[in-house]
């Protein structure tokens, strides 16, 4: 009785949520790769692509099916089986029935738990130590998050060719590692989990630190990182304090995203942000997960960073922020991760507690690092401290010096504005 498009017959009651295709593609890639093996990766990818294309062509005429997830999964699975039959690359194909796309309710061949496990497995595979962190991130974005090559290139400020190369290298590596792709257990699980967390942290920061200006796709990166972190927590082996701490950190920072840029897409630093634009729901979740993370005997970097973020989140404005607490937290963070960036942020907290003159001395200890010499925010902070200390002309000098070193337009704009405000 398929009459196609007809005002009475097109089913308008079903709808699909935002990013549905993207999220489904990740789920299906994970499930079918597990089922048919990483050697058939390309086949699975093509099957998913063809399936989504078919949905795009047919659903407007026939309506969205009652169970769109099942429809897509079944159709993709059938395409993989067709592909395998064509190339004769799998035994026992007769045993695999081609399922009827029109009746997916009868074909519940997987459970929700199984799908989540498959996603987790795929996440762990994408973060295999045999791949560089960059490749791990690109694979995660492509396979788990369903981003296209151009979208990844745009998000990571790389050119498409570089992304394509990284992808084909990564996929080949996964195929080669086929036998090692079981999710590690015990101690090895902990190590791999830490790698996954670094990739999620990297993913989040790509979205958060929009140093080249804000694009909508960047916010999506933050939300993807949060989504995948939730997925980790749903697995009993990964439901650990430091994972909750990372999730807390991401929520607390993501809460500030809307206040981070002005109408021109330029960055607004934390002290100047309109706090009523901070997302209260996210702050609330961030605090909730921070509380939950306060167990066990291991203080991770994520715990400390989340705690710092919570100090800002709970403060009415820059002045009423508990800078002493933040300074203490940065002292702890320096023990775990003495990076120049952390040191610089600590100096800002130091200044708030002890004043500009003493902070300038602290800054000297950081200044010698090579990374600092080319870091535009270093000069911005130094100029700020000099200004507070009444040394206006020196402040201007620092900013001029910095502008010479900037790498992109956004940084230049930011520093030029600072310079203007000193005149």
């Amino acid at each position, binding site marked *: 009785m398929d*009459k*196609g*498009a*007809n*005002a009475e017959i*097109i089913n*308008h009651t079903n709808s*699909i949520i935002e*990013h*549905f*295709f*993207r999220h*489904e*593609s990740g789920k299906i890639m994970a499930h079918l790769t597990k089922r048919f093996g990483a050697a058939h990766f390309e086949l699975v990818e093509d099957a998913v*692509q063809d399936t*989504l*294309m078919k*949905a*795009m*062509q*047919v*659903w*407007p*005429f026939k309506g*969205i099916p009652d169970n769109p997830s099942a429809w897509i999964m079944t159709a993709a699975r059938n395409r993989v089986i067709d592909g395998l039959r064509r190339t004769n690359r799998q035994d026992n194909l007769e045993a695999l029935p081609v399922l009827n796309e029109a009746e997916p309710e009868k074909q519940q061949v997987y459970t929700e738990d199984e799908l989540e496990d498959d996603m987790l497995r795929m996440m762990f595979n994408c973060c295999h130590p045999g791949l560089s962190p960059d490749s791990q991130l690109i694979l995660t974005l492509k396979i788990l998050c*369903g*981003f*296209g*090559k*151009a*979208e990844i290139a745009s998000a990571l400020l790389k050119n498409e060719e570089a992304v394509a190369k990284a992808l084909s290298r990564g996929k080949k590596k996964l195929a080669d590692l086929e036998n090692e792709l079981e999710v590690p257990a015990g101690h090895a699980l902990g190590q791999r989990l830490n790698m996954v967390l670094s990739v999620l942290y990297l993913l989040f920061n790509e979205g958060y630190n929009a140093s080249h200006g804000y694009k909508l796709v960047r916010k999506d990166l933050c939300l993807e990182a949060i989504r995948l972190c939730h997925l980790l927590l749903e697995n009993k082996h990964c439901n650990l304090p430091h994972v909750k701490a990372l999730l807390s950190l991401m929520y607390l920072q993501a809460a500030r995203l809307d206040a981070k840029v002005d109408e021109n897409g330029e960055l607004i630093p934390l002290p100047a942000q309109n706090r009523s634009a901070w997302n209260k729901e996210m702050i609330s979740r961030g605090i909730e997960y921070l509380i939950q993370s306060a167990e066990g005997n291991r203080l991770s970097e994520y715990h400390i960073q989340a705690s710092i973020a919570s100090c800002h989140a709970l403060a009415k404005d820059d002045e009423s922020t508990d800078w002493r607490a933040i300074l203490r937290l940065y002292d702890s963070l320096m023990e775990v991760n003495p990076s120049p960036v952390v040191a610089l942020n600590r100096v800002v907290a130091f200044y708030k507690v002890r004043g500009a003159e003493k902070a300038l001395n602290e800054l000297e200890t950081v200044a010698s690092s090579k990374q600092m010499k080319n870091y535009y925010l270093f000069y911005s902070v130094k100029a700020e401290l000099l200004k507070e200390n009444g040394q206006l002309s020196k402040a201007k000098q620092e900013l001029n010096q910095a502008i010479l070193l900037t790498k992109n337009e956004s940084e230049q704009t930011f520093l030029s504005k600072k310079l203007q405000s000193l005149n």
Partner: protein
Amino acid sequence: MEEYLFIFRGGDAREVQQSPEQMQEHMQKWMKWMEQLGQKEILVAGQPLKNEGKMVTSGGSVVTDGPFAEGKEIVGGYLLIKAANIEEAAEISKGCPIFDHEGTVEVRPIQSMEMN
């Protein structure tokens, strides 16, 4: 009101590798457009076409795989709508998302039994 056939050619995003997000956006545009036609009660029928087929030629004696027309010319589907006249029908077709991907719409009046 008369009936008009919309013949959709090209605009198949197959030519441009689209990401899942882009495909969803494009699909939702089509859905929105067709929903509007449905709400105005001018949508009569329509079907998408598979990208394969046969050509029967030479007096009906030859059957080959086809048509292998260029991407722009491949017919991807049709809609049958109601409009007051062909100008109105053409105007209605302008809202079709096929134009986002350089497709075309051929608008043809259905031959009626009217004696004029």
